[in-house]
Structures are given as structure tokens and as C-alpha cells.
């Protein structure tokens, strides 16, 4: 190796001595990066295979019925994932519907409107929120937020909506809606912080040009900042989504843990992650354990599908933007 690098150097050029001592690290570096990348792929493949292997007994017993059955009966050994899948999707959807617009508004405020000192203060607070462990959110949710929901928010919603099916039932404070809102609070800092960085990367020249043409702040935001950062915003949203869909402890505390699909958002529900957290330790029968592992497999595939959708969407927006320019 040293030999070849010596040959490559022209001896007539000054500074040859230094060049001779240089080693070519490229092959080693490439080897390192490739193997690290492969390790990651191998880990993902390994997890998938292991989940599949663990869920074989349940796959054999229930087949596709597992996905559409609401049963969850450890006594008779009859298991279905429907309520867990439904709860995972709905609680995540609530979180996204609440957190995404709020995060966008906060990020815009921080970048476009807030004085620098306020911006750095609020920005720091948001990063602090992101660092709080999820169990703290769970306990706060159970002891502070749930009673507040039960006493004020839920009766209010029920009254305003006129007993609409989504907002009906006993206002217990815990349940799907509370879990979704806690999740929203948990993913808000992530989405906000990434979105803020995205907005900061919009070149000042572009914005200033728009202002120069007589645009108002609202117009610059709507027509320049947001379109420019749309890819980054999408990325931020999926980061939040990823966290919401797999969140365990906080959800387990406030969702009410019930294996039943109920249209009312006040009702107790469960998610895949909360079911696993609750029942894994004491599942001693093979079929029970296997059904829990199959739930894990479902979550794995669900996350994978969402990733695919995200990538497809990103590509589409990229193409659209390319066509627009």
C-alpha cells in the first residue's frame, strides 16, 4: 500500500516527503462504513425473523383472523389484535392532528416573529420538554391531566357536541382521547424543534426578495417558507409519528387498558405497545406469549408500512416541487 502511494507521487514536486508518509485509509474506511451499515440491516432482519419465529404458534392457530378478531381471552386461549391495532392507529392519529399544526405555528413564531431572546428562551424550553422521560408524562397524565379531563374537558365536549358518538360515555378522564393528547404533548417538542431548524435553513435572500416585492409576513410564510421547507416538515412529522406509535409507558398509564374497540374517544382502549408492556411478564402459556410476539410483529410491519408511505410521499413532493420550478 505504501509502495503504491509512493509511486503515485511525482518526485519532482516539493513536499514529496510528506506525501510518502501518507497512508491510504480509504479501503479501511469504506470497509468500516459498509460493515456498520450491514450490521444495521442484519439487526433489522434478525428482529423480523425472530418475531416471525416467535409468532408461529399463534400464526398457525389463528391465521388472518388474528388481525380482525376483538377477542383477548387468556383463559380460553383466544386472541385477536383488532383492538390493539385500532387503539394504536387512533391514538396516534389524535396525537398527529393536535401536534402537527401546533408545532408548525410554534416553529413559525420562533423563526419569523419572536424577538431573538424570546426565541432562544422558548426554543430551550422546547428542547427541555423533549428530554422528559415518558414515564413522567404518564404519571402527570394520570394524576393531573386525567382529573382535569374528567372534570372540565370531557363534560364540555359532550355538551358542545350534543352527545355525539365520539364524545359520549362516562367522563372518566382516562381513555383514548387523554392518551392521544398526552402523546401529542410528547411529540410536539420533536416536531417543533426539527421544523424550526428547517425554517431557519430557508435562505434569507429568498424571503427578503418576497418582502421586497411587497409581500406580507403571512404571504411570505405561506408561499415561501412553508413550501421551501415542506420536505423537512414531512420528515419532522414522521419522526413524531414514529415516537407516538411505539410509545409505551405514558399510554399504559392513561389509556385504561381495555381489549375492546369502542367508537367513543372517552372509552378505555389499548395500543399494541401498552398491551405488550402489561401482559408480557405473566404470559406463561405458549399461545399467549406467541400472540403477544405476533402483536410485536404487527407493530413492526405497521411501522415499516408507514416508513414506506413516508418515503413515497417525500419522493412525490420532491417531484412536484421539481416540476413547479
Amino acid at each position: 500500500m505504501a509502495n503504491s502511494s509512493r509511486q503515485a507521487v511525482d518526485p519532482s514536486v516539493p513536499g514529496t516527503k510528506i506525501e510518502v508518509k501518507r497512508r491510504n485509509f480509504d479501503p479501511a474506511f469504506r470497509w468500516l462504513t459498509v460493515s456498520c451499515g450491514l450490521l444495521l440491516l442484519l439487526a433489522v432482519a434478525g428482529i423480523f425473523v425472530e418475531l416471525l419465529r416467535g409468532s408461529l404458534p399463534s400464526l398457525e392457530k389463528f391465521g388472518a383472523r388474528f388481525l380482525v378478531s376483538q377477542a383477548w381471552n387468556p383463559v380460553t386461549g383466544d386472541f385477536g389484535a383488532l383492538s390493539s391495532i385500532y387503539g394504536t392507529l387512533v391514538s396516534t392519529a389524535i396525537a398527529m392532528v393536535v401536534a402537527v399544526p401546533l408545532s408548525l405555528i410554534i416553529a413559525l413564531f420562533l423563526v419569523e416573529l419572536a424577538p431573538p431572546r424570546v426565541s432562544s428562551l422558548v426554543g430551550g424550553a422546547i428542547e427541555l420538554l423533549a428530554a422528559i422521560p415518558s414515564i413522567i408524562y404518564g404519571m402527570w397524565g394520570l394524576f393531573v391531566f386525567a382529573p382535569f379531563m374528567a372534570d372540565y374537558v370531557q363534560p364540555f365536549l359532550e355538551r358542545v357536541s350534543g352527545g355525539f358518538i365520539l364524545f359520549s360515555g362516562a367522563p372518566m378522564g382516562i381513555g383514548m382521547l387523554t392518551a392521544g393528547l398526552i402523546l401529542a404533548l410528547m411529540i410536539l417538542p420533536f416536531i417543533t424543534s426539527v421544523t424550526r431548524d428547517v425554517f431557519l435553513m430557508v435562505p434569507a435572500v429568498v424571503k427578503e426578495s418576497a418582502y421586497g416585492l411587497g409581500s406580507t409576513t403571512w404571504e411570505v410564510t405561506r408561499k415561501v417558507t412553508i413550501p421551501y421547507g415542506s420536505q423537512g416538515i414531512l420528515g419532522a412529522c414522521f419522526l413524531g409519528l414514529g415516537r407516538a406509535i411505539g410509545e409505551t409507558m405514558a399510554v399504559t398509564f392513561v389509556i385504561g387498558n381495555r381489549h375492546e374497540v369502542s367508537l367513543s374517544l372517552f372509552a378505555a382502549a389499548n395500543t399494541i405497545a401498552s398491551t405488550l408492556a402489561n401482559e408480557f411478564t405473566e404470559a406463561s402459556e405458549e399461545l399467549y406469549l406467541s400472540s403477544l410476539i405476533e402483536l410485536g410483529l404487527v407493530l413492526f410491519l405497521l411501522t415499516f408500512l408507514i416508513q414506506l408511505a413516508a418515503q413515497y410521499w417525500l419522493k412525490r413532493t420532491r417531484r412536484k416541487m421539481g416540476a413547479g420550478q
Partner: protein
Amino acid sequence: MRNGMTILKSLAAALAGLVLATPALAASVTINGAGATFPYPVYSQWAYAYQKETGTQINYQSIGSGGGIKQIKAGTVDFGASDAPLEVEELKAGGLIQFPLVMGGVVPVLNVEGVKPGDLRLSPELLADIFLGKITKWDDPRIKAENPSLKLPAQGITPVYRSDGSGTTWIFTNYLTKVSPDWAKTVGNDKAVQWPAGVGGKGNEGVAAYVQRIKGAVGYVEYAYALQNKMSHVLLKNRAGSYVAPTAETFQAAAANADWASAPGYYVVLTDQPGKESWPITGASFILLHKEQRKADVAQAMLSFFDWCYRNGNQSALNLHYVPMPEKVVALVEATWAKEIRAGGQPVWKK
């Protein structure tokens, strides 16, 4: 190279020295156990006190009964612990023996306006029908009939159950299965069941928190949690027809009336026991051991620890609101040790 050899040699010598020295330090045996969460507070206190007294270290990991059973079968721990006893066939298949170490009670607790601890009387049928979702209001005529002097609000009932698999749920559903044919037919008895109604809290603390937050809630927790949180317990009608409050005395009464001697593998469930003073939802927590022990010194140290718990651990158990095993049962258990537990063909327990 030569240098390397000398280092290796001295290392080997040092290792040999360590190995040889081990028997001399027999007092510092470490014993590993895993299993039930329900007795964890008292087991850890016993382990702490025992180590201070004898130097023997007991590691107990409360990973849940299911995990404890799995680990003792796999031989990764020296003893397992389970809140539900194993059936005799399962014990035989795993080469295990089991015995009860400590007892506790499960207490229905509620959060109803104007109802103080011990105010509400419930019959077994009422309790079952509430958890079946058949009785949905606190002013239901059937509850009123049992409590003619109590003013009950027209409030909805929210049953609260354990969302995680647990020995507490096993004991509670075992009781409901015994007293209600309906429950036995539609729900059954296990560490986790398909609850017909209500919401689930994780752990005793989760159930306690839900019951305290939700108006009109009724749940079931370990006795200690009911006391610590000053929750409203009920008076429950027992098999003899008298209403009893949950106390250490009524738990002990239930255990005293149980027939341990004629139960193979100590498969005794203390729910719905006879006796005027017996609290009907009482349960024992069991220890699982291999009949064939690999190391005589570990086995010896382990049995000495359990013996110490039986003889010296009563006060700390009572302080933590557990109930010690009656002396009669202890004598039976230790006779079983002497007969059944062996290491290298030799009996381990020789007292």
C-alpha cells in the same frame, strides 16, 4: 513469548488459589431467585435482614410469577416464586416441589361519595355481578337491599381491574369463579382474563390510582395498598354467612381453616374458606425449588433462609401487612424438605 507464558502461569496459579479458597468462604454464598411481584416487599426485607445476620446474599428479582416459573424450569435461578400454585402434574414434569412462604389478602376497594371504609356490605353474588357488568348503578335495588341504612348515589359503577397479568388477579378471579357460576362460565380464573366491563390499571398502584380518580369506581388491590392509600374497603360476606372486614386476623383465620396436610404439592387455594372469621379472598405465595439440587451448599443455604423466614420473619411480614404461615404448616413444609430435596443423592435438610 516467554514473558507471556510466565504471566499466564501466574494467572493460572491465582485462579487456582481463588477456586481453592472458595469453600472456606462458604458463608458468602449467593442465592438467586425470581418471580412473583406481590411478595416482593417482604422478600426483599427478609433478604436484607438475613444478609446482615448471616452474610448469605439473596437476590430476588420480581419479574412476575410467569417469569419465575419459566426461569426455575430452565434452571437459571435457584428458586422461583409464584402467587398461583402449580398443579401437581406440572410440578412432577419439571422435577419441582412447591411450598407456601407467606400469605396476603385481596381487598375490594371503592370510591363512592358518602361511603366510608367498611360502610358497604357486599355478598359474593353482588361482587361478581358488579364485575360482570350486570349491576351498573350504585343505587341498584340489590345493593340497597344489602345496605338498607346506607345512602347510595345514583352513580354509574366503573369496575377497575389489573391490566397486567398478576397473581392478585388470579386470586380474585379464583374467588369469583368459586362463588358465581355465571363468572365461571363466561370469564373464568387466570392471571389475566377477558374482563366483561371496566378499565384496567397497571399494577396495584395503577388500580389504586384509577379507583381514586374515577368517581363510582370499584377495584381490587393487595391489602397493603388499600391501607397505604386509605381506601374504602368493603365488608364481604364469607362462606359462613358473616360479614368480615379485611384484617390480618381474618386472613389468618382463612389459612387456619385450610386443609394443607391432605393437599398434594401444597396445592391449596385460600379463597372462600370455611369459618366465621375467614376473609374470603386470601391467597398464599409459593416458592418453587428443584427436587434434585446441583450444589449441596447452595441448597443448604437456601433452605436455611426459608427456615429463618418462617421463624424470624413474622414481625416484618406483619409490619408490611402480610400474614405469616401458621406453625402447623411450617412443620409440614420442613418435613417435605427433608423427604424430597436431595443433592447428589443425599438429603439436604436434616433438622
